[in-house]
């Protein structure tokens, strides 16, 4: 099995789906001639032609609107946001129109909106955001955020095949840093939407997390095992909406001490919702209050030292885990 990066795994998944189903097509800014800002769709124009790899004007609302129309007519559009930060420009189309089309008009809207997400790349406030909380609140949408190369491929394929709109958040810090052996041809890599994955088994503390924070949590878990003898379980949610409640409850019941780690800012972040669910369903299983490690409530600074200060780091996770273990 050849070793591929997270980005290459995503590219493979997209290419396989376009070869499998001629209704699948890509549209976005610079996705054709230029091959995408991060080269995710490099070579696609040559292979699939300008009818299926469409360069659009810089108008996210129009891109999503056009994709919705195509989806209603039976196509399977995959929209690329050049940076996921710009999905805010399509907020109205996604929440008022796309998310409600099936409910209002019985119109299926099978489409994927994907884009590079997250920080740690010195991108500043417009190129580093984690916007899941803004869409998590909208019934009718699905949200996935892979952490591994296998899931980058498995989730984009599942998202393309899903009958409803899926937001796919790919972490730009992981693009070329994560490598994994993936099967070539033959076995199909598919990750079911709505199912979390235990990234590391443990018995003392559970970390519920996703995307790039899975890797920081795993680093913290290794350090805590070596330095403190703590056994830390890491749950990679993979899908944020619908959330895998059963997997969260299972890990709470197992370790009785839980922390949630996310890269998004703290106030109104998903950790609050996860905490509420644990409180509602597993109060009697808690041996400590649920804790959060998140970014600070601030726009992400350009200055490297300040970006490091605002975003959650491995040592923040280690510190909070120690506090939780001592409770």
């Amino acid at each position, binding site marked *: 099995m050849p070793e591929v990066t997270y980005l290459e795994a995503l590219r493979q998944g997209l290419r396989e789906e376009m070869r499998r189903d001629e209704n699948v097509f890509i549209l976005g800014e610079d996705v054709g001639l230029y091959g995408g800002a991060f080269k995710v769709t490099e070579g696609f124009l040559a292979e699939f032609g300008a009818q299926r790899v469409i360069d659009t004007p810089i108008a996210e609302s129009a891109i999503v609107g056009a994709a919705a129309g195509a989806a209603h007519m039976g196509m399977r559009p995959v929209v690329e946001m050049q940076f996921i930060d710009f999905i805010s420009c399509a907020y109205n189309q996604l929440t008022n129109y796309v998310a409600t089309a099936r409910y209002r008009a019985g119109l299926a809207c099978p489409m994927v909106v994907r884009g590079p997400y997250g920080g740690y790349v010195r991108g500043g406030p417009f190129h580093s955001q984690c916007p899941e909380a803004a869409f998590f609140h909208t019934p009718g949408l699905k949200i996935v955020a892979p952490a591994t190369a296998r899931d980058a491929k498995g989730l984009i394929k599942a998202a393309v095949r899903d009958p409803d709109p899926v937001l796919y958040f790919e972490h730009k810090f992981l693009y070329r840093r994560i490598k994994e052996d993936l099967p070539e041809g033959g076995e199909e890599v598919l990750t079911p939407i709505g199912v979390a994955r235990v990234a590391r088994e443990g018995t003392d503390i559970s970390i519920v997390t996703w995307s790039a924070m899975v890797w920081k949590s795993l680093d913290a878990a290794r350090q805590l095992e070596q330095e403190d003898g703590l056994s830390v379980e890491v749950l990679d949610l993979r899908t944020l909406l619908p959330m895998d409640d059963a997997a969260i409850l299972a890990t709470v019941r*197992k370790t009785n001490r839980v922390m949630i780690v996310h890269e998004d800012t703290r106030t109104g972040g998903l950790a609050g919702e996860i905490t509420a669910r644990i409180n509602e369903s597993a109060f009697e299983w*808690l041996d400590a209050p649920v804790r959060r490690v998140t970014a600070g409530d601030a726009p992400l600074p350009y200055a490297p030292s300040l970006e490091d200060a605002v975003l959650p780091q491995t040592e923040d996770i280690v510190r909070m885990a120690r506090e939780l273990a001592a*409770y």
Partner: protein
Amino acid sequence: MARLDVIMPQMGESIAEGTLSRWMKKVGDPVKRDEPIFEISTDKVDAEIPAPAAGVLVEIKVQEGQTVPVQTVVAVIDTEAGATVAAPIAAPVPAAPVRAAPPAPSPVAAPAPGPVSAAVLPPSPSAAPRAETVDDRLRSRSTPLVRRIAAENHVDFTAIPGSGVAGRVTKKDLLGYIEAGGAAASPQGTAAAPQRAPAPQTGPLVSIASGIEETPWAAVPWPGDRVEPMSKIRMLTAQHMVLSRRTSAHVTSFYEVDMTRVARLRDAHKKAFEERGAKLTYLGFITKAVADCLRRHPILNAAVRGSTVIYRQPINIGIAVALDWGLIVPVVRNADELSLFGVARTMRDLADRARAKRLKPDEVQQGTFTITNPGGFGSYVGAPIINQPQVAILGVGAVEKRPKVLTLDDGTDVIAPRLLMMLGLSYDHRVVDGADADRFMADLKRLLEEFPEGAL
């Protein structure tokens, strides 16, 4: 003057608050040591609370109808006789069935955990009141998980050294203590139980749709009607009954029992029992017979927890006692280990103390099977509602002379006057099948009709 705080006592390990139902003394009244001064009702039991010392009641801080956490100061006694009586701080207000605001920090005494049996009496007056800190709270309350495991294993975790923050007892501390044999024998094993057990299907009693919620057909009072708020015991009964109906798949099986032989035994031994301080009743015979039969039919002496069945080790039979102010179910513990005399004496003692509001909380807890006796009022038979989380309840009808067809030794059928009694067993069909229930009842009927004279 020497002022002594009177505190809302902790009426049992799992009880966090109590409702002050009635003041028996007014501000200015002299009180004797151990003289009842107020009455409380908790989730489990009603009780009169005695004065911790002699003196004069100088201040009432909690009014009738208010619900306050345990350890809250409810009154102050001046222990120096003849001291001037302070004017009442708060004018007495009519009892309002509303929850009082949490008490100000200052009058809350430090939690003084003690053995449950001693907790009926107010804590020692030497426990000086002081503010409850977060550390105190961590030490005495720990976490939901620890409280749950402690309750399931009947452990007072406040007595265990804690390794957590501020000396808090952690899950590990508690499980270690239980594994080391610190807990009372638990029927379902200890340490691993909390993790193995499935999620409770229901939350705490009061959070479930209760018997007292507003319904679409809520009754409206008509002119001239009298509207009274329910007492605490009434509300708890209402909630429990509705919840039980929703929880268990009730089925009732009826059996007729010939009590002629029991009546003869009773007449023969009544006097001897009375001389030894017990009253020999039909219910005594029935309770004893039920206890013996339950040992052979453990599924009737069980409880349901999620998708598991807990087979109870002890046979603790609750006997429903009708009081003027409601229903209470004191428990005859280990009834199968008692003689008929022991059962009769325990039943009389429990019933007497229930009427006098002198039951201890432990005496109404941990029943494993319940008997109710509407026959005392003349009822032919009833289909009672199960006392959760048990799986069966026996309703006893009136014992009266009725005609019965008997077959003589020579095969002739005759109609004879016999003392007959109906029994109605309601059981939870989720775990008890008809065959289980009927085998138990047939056994019970045989034992009563052939009650061994040697057992007296």
